[in-house]
């Protein structure tokens, strides 16, 4: 999809003394996009967000917002607004005063401001809370106030710094859906910082996975999940089994690999993001791409391998098995949807595994 770029980052570097926090970030974020910066703590994602907001000066490179160079432009003159991790609700003001804070310099009449605050509160589902004291709110409500306050100025870009990390699991899921709805409704570009890969997958149009101040991969959630470009990205997004493998031949856009425990498999060249350089590598396969065959079932193309169940983790809708394939040193994880009439295997049982080569990724 091609969108008009609203944020353009070119070769952005940030040093704190000797510490190199951002190492040449280049990315384009489109108008109306829900974009996530995903990475472990200390990867520079928050620094990058704060650099876009103007709270951090960058050491090198360029930040363009809506086509304008932001060099030397303070946060109060950038077309961005931010939802802070702590929400930063002004404790000495009411909910309405908080939400209307950004309108102080707008030159609007009191009546217009009152209406705008009312609409903003309506939008986040807090219509009746305007006169509440800010400190008398729950976590989820504070989050909504912070959102309404940041959106009332109709910024070009809304920046969200780990906005859901302070909420409990249930509330987080509610707010994820709420944020997606809100973003579609207002059509503003959202840039979300998160360390929660599930959150990023659920909400984003595109995700930039960051490690040590660099973007390791920038893709839509599905590509990121199905075709991670490196083992590190694959490990960070969801869970993946890694099996030692050897490239035994290639040609015609196909790569032939010998996978320990699973035998010989043909892969498409697209499944080798780092290129098949021959020799030793690893094949990654997601737990849900492995299947345990039941009695009498056979795998397509005879792709089967035998093993022993070493661990059973029952989740109700799913069961996770750790299966040690014959002739391999470490077990692989298999996730199976629980079906009526199908018994959950016991610890120590023998199991036959089948797999789909299209779901594999080769890392060399």
């Amino acid at each position, binding site marked *: 999809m091609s969108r008009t770029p609203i944020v353009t980052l070119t070769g952005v570097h940030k040093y704190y003394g000797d510490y190199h926090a951002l190492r040449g970030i280049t990315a384009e974020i489109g108008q109306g996009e829900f974009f996530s910066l995903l990475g472990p703590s200390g990867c520079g994602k928050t620094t990058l967000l704060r650099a876009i907001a103007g709270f951090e000066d960058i050491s090198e490179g360029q930040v363009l917002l809506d086509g304008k160079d932001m060099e030397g432009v303070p946060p*109060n003159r950038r077309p961005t*607004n*931010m939802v802070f*991790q702590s929400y930063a609700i002004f404790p000495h003001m009411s909910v309405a005063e908080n939400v209307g*804070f950004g309108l102080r310099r707008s030159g609007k009449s009191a009546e217009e401001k009152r209406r705008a605050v009312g609409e903003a509160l309506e939008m986040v589902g807090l219509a009746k809370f305007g006169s509440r004291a800010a400190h008398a709110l729950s976590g989820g409500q504070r989050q909504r106030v912070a959102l309404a306050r940041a959106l009332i*100025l109709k910024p070009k870009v809304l920046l969200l710094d780990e906005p859901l990390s302070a909420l409990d699991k249930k509330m987080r899921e509610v707010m994820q859906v709420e944020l997606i709805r809100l973003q579609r409704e207002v059509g503003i570009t959202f840039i979300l910082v998160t360390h929660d890969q599930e959150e990023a997958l659920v909400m984003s149009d595109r995700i930039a996975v960051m490690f040590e101040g660099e973007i390791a991969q920038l893709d839509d959630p599905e590509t990121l999940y199905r075709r991670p470009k490196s083992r590190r990205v694959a490990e960070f997004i969801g869970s993946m089994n890694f099996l030692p493998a050897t490239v035994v031949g290639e040609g015609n856009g196909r790569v032939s690999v010998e996978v320990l425990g699973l035998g010989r498999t043909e892969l498409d060249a697209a499944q080798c993001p780092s290129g098949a350089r021959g020799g030793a590598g690893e094949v990654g396969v997601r737990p849900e791409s492995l299947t345990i065959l039941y009695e009498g079932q056979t795998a397509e193309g005879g792709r089967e391998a035998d093993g022993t169940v070493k661990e059973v983790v029952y989740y109700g809708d799913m069961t996770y098995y750790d299966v040690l394939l014959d002739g391999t040193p470490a077990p692989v994880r298999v996730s199976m949807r629980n079906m009526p009439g199908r018994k959950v295997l016991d610890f120590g049982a023998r199991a036959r595994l089948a797999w789909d080569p299209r779901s594999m990724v080769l890392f060399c």
Partner: protein
Amino acid sequence: MRLGPLGVFAGLYLMVLYAPIVLLPMFAFNSGTIIAFPLQGFTLNWFAALLDTPALHEATLNSLIIAVSTAIFATILGLFAARAATRYSFPGKAGIVGFIMLPLVLPEVIVAIALLIVLMQLGLNSGTWSIIAGHTLICTPFAIAILQGSFSNMDRSLEEAAVDLGETPWSTFRLITLPLVTPGIIASLLICFTISLDEFIIAFFLSGNEPTLPVYLWGQLRFPARLPVVMALGTILVALSVVLLIIAETFRRRGLKRAGLKDTGGFL
């Protein structure tokens, strides 16, 4: 409640601590001129005597001018120092902050003598302004300690949020920072005022011919007949100090509550 040995100890401790202070109002309202038991009768004469002693009024006025000025100067200096100490990091910060806090443990008599020597070397007359300077020196660490608490209790992103929403650094200070640290400012003003009002050593060395209230009181001790009047004055001062401290603490706690924070200790 069962009174164990620790309870007895606590009781004795409090008695030793406060019994002498309780004696003050006792003799202030006692009609006998000699400070001795048994108490004779109830009188308000000593308080009345306070009213027609012009020297006392002058000393009181002096003390009030000094205490109010000290409270304002020390709090303004403390405000800057506390904000710098909690918001910025710069080389040598720990050392600089420690250096500013030093007067807290410096013997006052040393400070007083040093100030006096400096004044004499410069050929200046000591007086009210030099006492204000000395008191500001010893009160500033208290102001910093109180205000540092207010600043560090304040979420830093509050200021950033205001800037993000279009305010300048100065209007952010006025609209967000100041209202949130106001309880701390009031507490600091009141505590500095109280410290300055009670302070004797610096005032004694530097007061020249304009005594402050404590210095005047000390002078009166030479006249045994004036002793009950001194007791009356002391009673008023104790009551005033307690009231001011309670107000200061009330403001500090209200500030915490307003910011929705947990109390992590204070002066009371």
